């Protein structure tokens, strides 16, 4: 069955391999205009999670992305070629990029070949790694994390439960649970007090 969204300005559909649990909300199908995953359950939006306009699920052919319950994505670019896991009660602000890899080859000659073959085919219209890019590394954002606007979460990063990432941070290494991290590159600024923790 073809799934569309009532009142959607974008003439798209929700792909069949996008799983929407009860109460999960997607504002517009433009979020799937770069969706190319062929995995059976490529994107799972758990119950009462939400993906507002501006979100982009830029998933390559082998990507799987899980969004936990009650998690709110307000204009987030999720760029995946392996796995990205976002937990429950996570809040992610606008223009945040969560990426699990670099699609461009590191070697300049290989990158030129990628760009030449892309210009010739443009099958999906989207520059993708074609096996020539760098090996993706899964990203995990645990429960109760809050990421402020314009941040970049880079390949292989793991952000622990309850942590907060300040605006415009670039997170290139793991962030432990229950701390405040910010900066470019991001550093832990302080730990959050036990009384700030949801589960003590």
């Amino acid at each position: 069955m073809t799934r569309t969204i009532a009142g959607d300005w974008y003439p798209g559909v929700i792909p069949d391999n996008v799983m929407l649990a009860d109460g999960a909300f997607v504002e517009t199908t433009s979020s799937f205009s770069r969706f190319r995953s062929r995995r059976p359950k490529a994107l799972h939006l758990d119950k009462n999670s939400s993906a507002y306009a501006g979100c982009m699920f830029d998933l390559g052919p082998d990507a799987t992305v899980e969004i936990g319950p009650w998690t709110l994505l307000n204009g987030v670019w999720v760029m995946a070629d392996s796995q990205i896991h976002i937990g429950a009660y996570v809040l992610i602000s606008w223009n945040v990029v969560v990426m699990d890899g670099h699609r461009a080859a590191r070697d300049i000659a290989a990158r030129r070949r990628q760009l030449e073959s892309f210009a010739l085919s443009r099958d999906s219209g989207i520059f993708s790694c074609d096996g020539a890019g760098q090996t993706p590394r899964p990203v995990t954002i645990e429960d109760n994390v809050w990421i402020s606007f314009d941040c970049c979460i880079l390949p292989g990063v793991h952000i622990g439960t309850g942590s907060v990432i300040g605006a415009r941070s670039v997170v290139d290494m793991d962030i432990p649970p229950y701390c405040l991290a910010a900066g470019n590159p991001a550093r832990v600024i302080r730990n959050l007090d036990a009384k700030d923790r949801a589960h003590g």
Partner: protein
Amino acid sequence: MTTIRPDAVWDGGELPPTVRVGVNTRINGSHAFRRIRAAAPDALVVGAHTTLDGVQFSIGTHARVTIGNYCCLTAVVIMSECLISIGDYVLIGFNVVVADSDFHPLDPAARIADAMACSPSGTKLPRPAVAAAPVVVEDDVWIGPGAVIFKGVHIGRGAWIAPGSMVTRDVPPGGCVGGNPARPMERPT
């Protein structure tokens, strides 16, 4: 953003008279040329086999932008008040901004005049001079998502700009920079 149409140079219709494009170049996004104020027939020159997916140009009255062959730019904002020159085989990720100007004067009094000149119900006087310096991005450069390239910056051939970098200084050929402000760094694997 939609997927690139293989049959049309620009999915927004006829190219504006200020834009020249080489063979097999594809441009996507109805907002692409909305803020081109230059009237010259070569205000924006794009080479062959290049993909501009959701790129927006702001080109001032006397400004120019050139982009080479086999480039791929996704959701990039290019704001030029003098000259932005991008080479061949350049890859630029989403949410990147390239600007060759400060947009507004640093001097507070001049900035008040600029605020009034910019207002739609303002004085209609010409805007005061704003600092601008050409930006050059040489061949084979990779610019990660969320980076900003500021005025006067020259990025050498094959350089690698980490995601989220604020690039305020020149980057040598083959160099790698990251951070805010961007500094030389070891290139991550």
